[in-house]
């Protein structure tokens, strides 16, 4: 019973909806960017031209195409159509219009497209956590903040007579914490898996320096500086890896550093004060391996957003800005529906609380009000 209470307290403690909404913007924004950079006709056309024997549909692909059979191979035109539908619905998920529904469809579409690409015996790692994050957000009230749905709800409440201005950073829900925690634990398990496999396959020899030199030089020769992972490879462009890969001592230190980082990342989840250190090291780690080895794990850096208390960040930012700027004052008339709606709209997007709202119309315009703006 005590265990059950501790479980509930851990996952379902009230937390700011703002953080969840912000992570929705980051995760959906990242996936939209990823999709928008694809050239669907070329990518899916190349896959469609591959022989049938190379098509080994993943379980999730079999499930998604189940009505057509367990080994159904969707034709190129169908996949391209799903791509455009997914991209379109992703824009709705981003702005938060019918958020739960649009995010569920966007997640399903993204999983379908990625699973199709990976059903030809080539599976990569960087996108898996993005898919899981989208799914978790779709199951949560991620549209209850920073969304068109939320804004519409607030404006309607104002129309019905609720004339109090709100603080969009303060709304809490007991369902706003678990999706972010799940993704945090996903990161911990992923990094542990990476450390586990290195130690299982190679023991401490993995940190001998030669190993990292080998991988840096191999990737440097394959991809060069300009190729991003799937091109013809063996680029003629010299890579920074060919220079860094010469330094054995540096490689040994970096090997120990990455092993230490991967095997202890879970501490950042258990002890949140350590989080800033791990996030900084992690960001440097992923940016470095991207530029040196073209290992495209930048999605991880974006999704580190799940670790950040964004409400606190924006509040602190607001205090800092307020200390250096004259904050504009916005007067609104609580008796006027239009005035309240305008004030609410400004308040909704003023995440740092820069604007001061005053529920009255100033009687006269004086010198102190030269920076003020007035409704109507």
């Amino acid at each position, binding site marked *: 019973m005590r265990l059950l209470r501790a479980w509930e307290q851990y996952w379902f403690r009230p937390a700011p909806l703002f953080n969840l909404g912000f992570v929705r913007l980051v995760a959906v924004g990242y996936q939209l960017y990823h999709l928008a950079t694809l050239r669907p006709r070329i990518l899916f056309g190349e896959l469609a031209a591959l022989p049938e*024997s190379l098509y080994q549909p993943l379980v999730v692909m079999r499930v998604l195409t189940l009505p057509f059979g367990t080994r159904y191979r969707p034709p190129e035109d169908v996949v391209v159509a799903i791509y455009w539908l997914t991209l379109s619905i992703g824009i709705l998920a981003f702005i938060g219009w019918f958020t739960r529904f649009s995010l569920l469809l966007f997640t399903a579409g993204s999983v379908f497209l990625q699973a199709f690409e990976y059903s030809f015996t080539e599976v990569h790692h960087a996108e898996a956590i993005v898919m899981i994050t989208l799914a978790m957000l779709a199951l949560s009230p991620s549209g209850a903040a920073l969304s068109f749905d939320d804004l519409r709800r607030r404006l309607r409440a104002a129309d019905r007579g609720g004339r109090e201005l709100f603080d969009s950073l303060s709304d809490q829900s007991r369902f706003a914490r678990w999706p972010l925690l799940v993704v945090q634990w996903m990161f911990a398990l992923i990094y542990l898996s990476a450390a586990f496999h290195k130690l299982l396959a190679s023991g401490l020899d993995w940190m001998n320096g030669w190993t990292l030199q080998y991988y840096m*030089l191999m990737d440097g020769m394959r991809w060069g500086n300009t190729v991003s992972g799937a091109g013809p490879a063996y680029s003629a462009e010299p890579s920074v890896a060919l220079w860094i890969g010469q330094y054995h001592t540096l490689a040994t230190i970096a090997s120990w550093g990455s092993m230490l980082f991967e095997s202890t990342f879970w501490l950042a989840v258990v002890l949140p004060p350590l989080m800033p250190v791990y996030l900084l090291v992690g960001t440097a780690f992923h940016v470095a391996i991207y530029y040196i080895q073209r290992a495209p794990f930048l999605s991880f850096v974006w999704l580190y957003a799940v670790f950040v208390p964004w409400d606190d960040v924006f509040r602190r930012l607001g205090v800092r800005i307020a200390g250096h700027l004259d904050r504009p004052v916005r007067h609104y008339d609580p008796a006027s529906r239009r005035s309240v709606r305008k004030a609410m709209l400004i308040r909704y997007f003023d995440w740092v609380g820069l604007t001061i709202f005053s529920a009255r119309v100033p009687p006269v315009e004086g010198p102190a009000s030269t920076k003020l703006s007035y409704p109507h």
Partner: protein
Amino acid sequence: MTRLLSLVIAAVLVLQTAASFDIFPKLFSRPSYVLWPFMNYPMYRTAHYEGTVIARFHVLGQTAERVEVELTPEDFGLNFRKFQDIAIPAIRRRDVAQVAMFAEIYREKSGNRLVGIRVEQHGDILTRDGLRPAPPAELATVSLR
């Protein structure tokens, strides 16, 4: 509601834990990515030592006119990774059926029929004093006559 969500949370974490530590292959004899997006992360796991060869593979085809051509991933309609992970291993294990399939793709693209394909290993040796060229070695030949 919290009970249902608790089930979701537990399922996600159990699946990722099982995938992370290779429990799927032990339980179902299936690769760890079988339940993608739940998968393991074993990249770059093999240790290497001084003297190891950083290999580059060259795939060479012999046409029916006895002309030798270097074959690239595009010739087989593949990207580099699939070329490296599917085509070259197929040649190295002398899987005639799969190699013939790639030769057929080449014929459709170029109009030339291949009667043989071989893989050569080139590369550099990792030494304390930098990279030294490794002597080329022929790894496998597949006859398609």
